[in-house]
């Protein structure tokens, strides 16, 4: 039980209030109302922490905390009370943790914005939109049902659109905003259809109630096909939001927005919503009841897309020179890891369910653990990149280099971030990424396809270390190649960076006091152990492999970009081909679909003007012509009029007979 339920509502209401205040009167507040926004977010963070501590105190570790629904408002009442659509919040281990994570990162990035956005015009607009975004993200992770999740999800999408287009007078920014909105909307439509299907099958959208009804509805109402379709539709939404192949094209372009937005929305929080949604969709993937056959097809699709995207995006990151685009592709790749972990974990759990064994939620925990860790180190990398861009006024890494000397703090914290991203022990990425790979390998014993996905994952781990240090060496090592005189950023920017750098170490090790992250965030039943499960020897080997390839990648990056002993082209040629494929083919398809829409629209418009409206005008024109012709018959000769009168009489008599016959026939038909 949460002691004061309204506290949970306040977590959402604080940033919402900040949005309203800054949106309405921000222009008149000093500095565009930035302190209102930071203050509201700090309040939200403190309350989130309070809720989280309460959850822990009531046995959150080890599964002692019963998920609690905080009843809210009945939005659409229904004839059946249990069918009405409510707006209410859910507090369980996962959502309590996500609330803390989101509010903390929002707070740090808002503080950083005080420095980064200091000289921008339109600050009230920026602060109003990021506050609304914070409301959206906090609402997404605390939603009690799929519809409410969708609403807050779309609020985030709206803010993402507005913030990518923050510099809307730049044509690229406006185009990127449009692209982001439209491409994610493709996924959102699938999500909406999924919500409709769920509503139709279950008559409810709340996570808890769906889980309860699962066994009783299967297999008559909830057919196996539907059980496959529902998670796939939800995953469709996740693919759009989390920028997975083939809907990933919007995320690199979204880097046109301010770097704080990239860090907050397109790395740390919003793009994670897809992973969060898929985690919530576990109630369909792993029914936790031996009576329900789990949908293996959907699980394989999720894991497959994750496995493919992770390698695909990593190769893109290797060949880009724009520091933010590198990080964007890296985000896609890391998110794909999470989907791979969710898929592999779900596969293991589903086989255990179908055999009637106790389930082991290692993959689920590992994926969310990676979500948690990645949020910190990727936010750090983006904000560090922002600090660099702030100093050298360019995004191009070819015009950087040697920045370690003028920017000591930034270069050090970026090193922390790169080590965490590469997955080097004891930085956080090591624990969660290694665990995802172990689970994938383990799933291989049930379904050999996972061995292939494991291989893709290991290859990605190598590439990840390579591009992470390629970025670091190109930026901070060697000679400065730029033109602007670089300088270190002010403390308001570097302090959040240092806090985040601390977390790249701490967030991984946090699992120790919890006796494993799986003890806190789990599906079904908790798992104690470090980092997730009581580790068998095989796992040490697997962790060693992922660590080993990371070190190899790091070494190669050092050889190529720091010492320049190995020419870069030799390694990037194949990646360049993939990059070409991505730019020309994938992006070409996206743009082609858009262009096809325009062609169809133009055609329909022409049809509307010429055929439909043309017919309308033709009828009226013909009426006028006929009347003109008939006018000529008005000759004034009495003889011809008399003939017409006789003819008319005949017609009238015929009509009378005909109609009475028709009436009799019709009456007979009606009977």
């Amino acid at each position: 039980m949460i002691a004061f339920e309204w506290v949970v509502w306040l977590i959402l209401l604080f940033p919402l209030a900040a949005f309203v205040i800054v949106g309405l009167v921000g222009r008149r507040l000093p500095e565009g109302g930035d302190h209102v926004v930071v203050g509201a977010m700090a309040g939200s963070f403190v309350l989130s922490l309070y809720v989280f501590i309460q959850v822990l105190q009531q046995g959150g570790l080890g599964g002692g905390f019963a998920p609690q629904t905080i009843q809210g408002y009945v939005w659409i009442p229904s004839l059946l009370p249990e069918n009405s659509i409510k707006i209410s919040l859910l507090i369980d281990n996962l959502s309590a943790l996500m609330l803390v994570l989101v509010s903390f990162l929002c707070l740090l990035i808002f503080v950083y914005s005080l420095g980064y956005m200091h000289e921008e015009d339109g600050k009230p607009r920026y602060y109003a939109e990021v506050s609304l975004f914070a409301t959206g993200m906090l609402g997404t992770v605390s939603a009690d049902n799929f519809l409410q999740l969708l609403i807050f999800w779309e609020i985030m999408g709206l803010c993402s659109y507005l913030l990518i287009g923050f510099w809307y007078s730049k044509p690229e920014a406006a185009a990127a905003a449009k692209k982001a909105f439209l491409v994610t909307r493709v996924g959102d439509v699938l999500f909406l259809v999924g919500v409709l299907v769920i509503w139709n099958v279950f008559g409810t959208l709340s996570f808890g109630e769906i889980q309860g009804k699962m066994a009783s509805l299967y297999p008559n109402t909830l057919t196996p096909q539907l059980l496959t379709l529902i998670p796939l539709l939800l995953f469709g939404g996740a693919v759009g939001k989390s920028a997975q192949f083939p809907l990933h094209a919007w995320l690199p372009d979204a880097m046109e927005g301010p770097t704080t937005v990239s860090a907050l929305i397109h790395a740390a929080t919003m793009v994670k919503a897809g992973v969060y949604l898929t985690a919530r969709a576990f109630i369909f993937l792993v029914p936790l009841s031996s009576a329900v056959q789990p949908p293996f097809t959907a699980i394989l699709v999720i894991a497959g897309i994750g496995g493919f995207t992770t390698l695909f995006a990593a190769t893109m990151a290797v060949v880009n020179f724009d520091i933010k685009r590198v990080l964007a592709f890296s985000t896609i790749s890391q998110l794909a890891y999470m989907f791979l972990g969710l898929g592999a974990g779900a596969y293991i759990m589903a086989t255990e369910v179908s055999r009637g064994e106790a389930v082991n939620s290692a993959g689920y925990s590992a994926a969310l653990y990676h979500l948690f860790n990645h949020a910190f180190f990727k936010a750090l990398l983006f904000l560090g990149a922002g600090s660099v861009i702030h100093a050298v006024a360019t995004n191009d890494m070819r015009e950087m280099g040697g920045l370690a000397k003028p920017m000591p703090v930034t270069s050090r914290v970026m090193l922390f971030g790169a080590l965490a991203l590469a997955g080097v022990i004891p930085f956080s990425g090591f624990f969660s990424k290694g665990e995802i790979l172990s689970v994938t390998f383990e799933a291989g014993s049930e379904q050999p396809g996972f061995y292939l996905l494991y291989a893709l994952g290991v290859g990605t781990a190598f590439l990840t270390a390579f591009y992470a240090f390629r970025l670091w060496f190109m930026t901070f090592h060697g000679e400065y190649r730029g033109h602007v005189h670089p300088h270190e950023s002010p403390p308001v920017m570097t302090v959040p960076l240092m806090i985040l750098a601390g977390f790249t170490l701490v967030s991984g090790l946090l699992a120790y006091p919890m006796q494993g992250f799986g003890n806190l965030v789990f599906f079904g039943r908790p798992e104690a152990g470090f980092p997730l499960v009581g580790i068998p020897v095989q796992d040490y080997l697997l962790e060693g492999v992922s660590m080993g390839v990371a070190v190899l990648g790091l070494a190669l990056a050092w050889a190529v970009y720091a010492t320049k002993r190995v020419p870069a082209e030799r390694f990037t040629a194949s990646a360049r081909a993939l990059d070409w494929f991505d730019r020309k083919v994938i992006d070409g398809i996206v743009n082609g679909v858009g262009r096809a829409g325009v062609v169809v629209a133009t055609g329909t418009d022409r049809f509307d003007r010429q055929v439909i409206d043309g017919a309308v005008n033709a009828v009226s024109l013909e009426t006028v012509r006929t009347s003109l012709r008939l006018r000529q018959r008005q000759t004034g000769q009495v003889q011809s009029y008399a003939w017409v009168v006789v003819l008319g009489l005949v017609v009238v008599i015929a009509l009378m007979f005909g109609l009475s016959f028709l009436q009799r026939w019709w009456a007979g038909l009606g009977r």
Partner: protein
Amino acid sequence: MTYVLTLLILVPLIGAVIAWVAGTSHRVTKLIALTFSLVETALATFLLLGFINPGWGVFFGTPTATPPPTAGAYVPLYYMERYSGWSQFGFNYIVGVDGLSVPLIWLTTLLTTLAIVFHWDQEDRPQAFFGLFLFLEMTLVGVFMALDLLLFAVFWELVIIPMFFLIGIWGGPNRRYAALKFLIFTQVGFVIMLLSIFALYFNSAGVNAAVYGTNANTLDMTAFLHAALRHQTGALATYLTVGLQIPMFAAFLVGFLVKLPSFPFHTWLPDAHVEAPTGGSVLLAGVLLKMGGYGIFRIDFGILPDAARSLWWVLAILGTVSMVYAAFVCLAQVDLKRLIAYSSIGHMGFVLLGASSLTVIGVQGGIFQMFNHGIITAILFMLAGSVKHATGTRDIPELQGLAKVMPQFSLILAIGFFASLGLPGLNSFWSEFMVFVGAYGSPNLGERSSAGSRSGRRAWRRSS
């Protein structure tokens, strides 16, 4: 017995006459028009409040639900008034409102007031201009509360007159063509509709006898509504046969589809919108289109339910085609007003789809969609009007970069268009969601639309 409904008809009528006759100066005319429209809005607001919670409507006395003429009949109508002085001709003055009409009446009064305020700087013959607006308000309110078929037909026809002159006199360069097109389209639809009204009259004696115990032909809609409902519940054995209902349904439907408008009867709408003055567009899209939806729900569904059950697919197909077709045509538009006009056609497709589902939530969604669309489209047309006023053009490509110079305008435009696209959380999302839920779960559509919903059908059967 309260007189609030009659008052709602009389106030704008009196206002129209006074504005026309006593409008000695432009300023006085505007003040008169504004006063009367505000009074009307206040009355409608009390009506709405009283409908939501009878305790709040004490201003008019307690709502008078129709006394069930015979036991077992129940049509929930609030605030009904009936004068039967002329019933020997089959005509009664009957006005009444229920949950379908109250929001539409409120919307009408609200949008009229806003349109009058929007045209505050109207200098071209304001007496006639504002008089026509108030007259239009009277006719629209009348359509939504008339419960006698003849009264309904009269108000339906009267609506055309002020709108015809508003477009034809104060419209854009091509106004004569647009006004005439509007007139002929709706007139043809009305004439076809009139056939069904006659048919209903000549088949009404039995219905009248069953409900009111008078064996005479009548145009009283309440008789039909009661009888249809009792027939549905099995309390009344004989009602209009299906063979009779189907042609009546079809003829009414033509009139309503033209008004709605639905593909392929929609081409009058973009022309009328482009030429109409802003306030005219607001009322045209905000309220006039709803007359079609209102007619479908009140008459096609209320009086002819058996035909609705066999002809639902016509609505479903036309609704879906309208949505997709209008969306594509929208994409090709350059004129902001034409774009909004086509988007209206698409949104009205949702009304048809919700109606065709024949489920409670689908029909509710359709009604809700009418109200929400009225709000959104009013915002958008007013914005289109003010952008034309401020920049002299409505061509979208020429309007680039407005956010810098007109930030508040851009903000409201963004809100309006996001609401229009059904962004979750904004108003039209809810109605469209309800329509989708209804359509997906419909026993009609689910059966045919996808294999996946076969189970949905089963679930529906179980719940009903």
